[in-house]
């Protein structure tokens, strides 16, 4: 069965690109336009991985990640964070809040897919 990936990003063009890349590689994609909607989608679907933008209205990527890590239903979810800034302090904060990996925008298709696959391997089989 296709793995379900939740994309939360307020930029519709980023969501479109991600959807295209991931679907082409056999993943099923669920979209959310911000962290709050992301949370709702998470509760409604059986999601296997999250790709979140760092900066989003209502609930940002870090807040969403934190909420997920504190909830026993979702705490094991692999999370990949997207960011335009690659500031070291920001990355450290993200990892410490529970993000598994960072990819900076604009991202290359092959890098993103390699990261997604590497993250999948970290899941208990």
């Amino acid at each position, binding site marked *: 069965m296709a793995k379900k990936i939740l994309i939360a990003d307020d930029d519709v063009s980023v969501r479109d690109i991600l959807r295209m890349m991931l679907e082409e590689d056999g993943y099923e994609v669920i979209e959310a336009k911000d962290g709050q909607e992301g949370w709702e989608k998470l509760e409604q679907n059986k999601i296997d991985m999250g790709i979140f933008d760092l900066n989003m209205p209502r609930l940002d990527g870090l807040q969403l990640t934190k909420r997920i890590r504190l909830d026993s239903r979702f705490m094991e979810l692999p999370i990949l964070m997207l960011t335009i800034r690659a500031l070291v302090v920001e990355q*450290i904060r993200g990892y*410490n809040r529970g993000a598994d990996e960072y990819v900076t925008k604009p991202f*290359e298709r092959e*890098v993103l897919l390699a990261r997604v696959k590497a993250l999948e391997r970290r*899941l208990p*089989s």
Partner: protein
Amino acid sequence: MEILIAGPEPLGKIWEESFASRGWKISRSADFKSALALLPKFPGAVIVFESLLPDALSLNLIREKETRLSLLVSSRLQNSARLIELLNAGADDVISPDMPAELLSAKLEAVFRRFVKPESIGTLKSQDGKIEIDRLKREVLLDKKILDLTKTEFDLLAFILERPGIALERRTLLQTIRTDSDSIQSSTVDKHIEALRKKLGESGSCIRTVHGVGYAWEIGTVPNSVQRRKK
């Protein structure tokens, strides 16, 4: 967490010291062959220096055999083609010796979180037998009597006792007791340690202050798990 660093001196050595201060146990091997020999029984994560890898394919071979191993590659070549190659060959992450130590630790911890931490299971005992910690029950016995500790005090004590003789930095300790509030200062650690020492009575003196760094459990008090490993 145990880490096997397969890399040449002196770089591996520098990391070794920086990781030890975070409470990670480090083993080393200087060449690829001896690292391979250690892998099947290795309980933790492995960092392989790119210079030791014959080619990316050899990474693939490790990954096929050791599917549950946390495998990182240290590479100075951070171009995306190389990154993709290493990730696809089975690396969980690619790190660079040039990365700031803090970022490196944060990345490693993100990888480690995905694996069962053997240290989080079972019991710990101080060598003099005075203190016993049951992680599953979250219970501490001092001279066979239950000690009433707060959650933070329990976490701190378990973390320090597990790593005897290692000077643990305040920020490392702060991380182990991190709560929802982001406003905790490193003085918070001092406050909790002080409370812990009082509750531990005589055994409280085993928590040594390392000036300018943090705290360490007095060596001479070795947890059970470490004793077992030495046999």
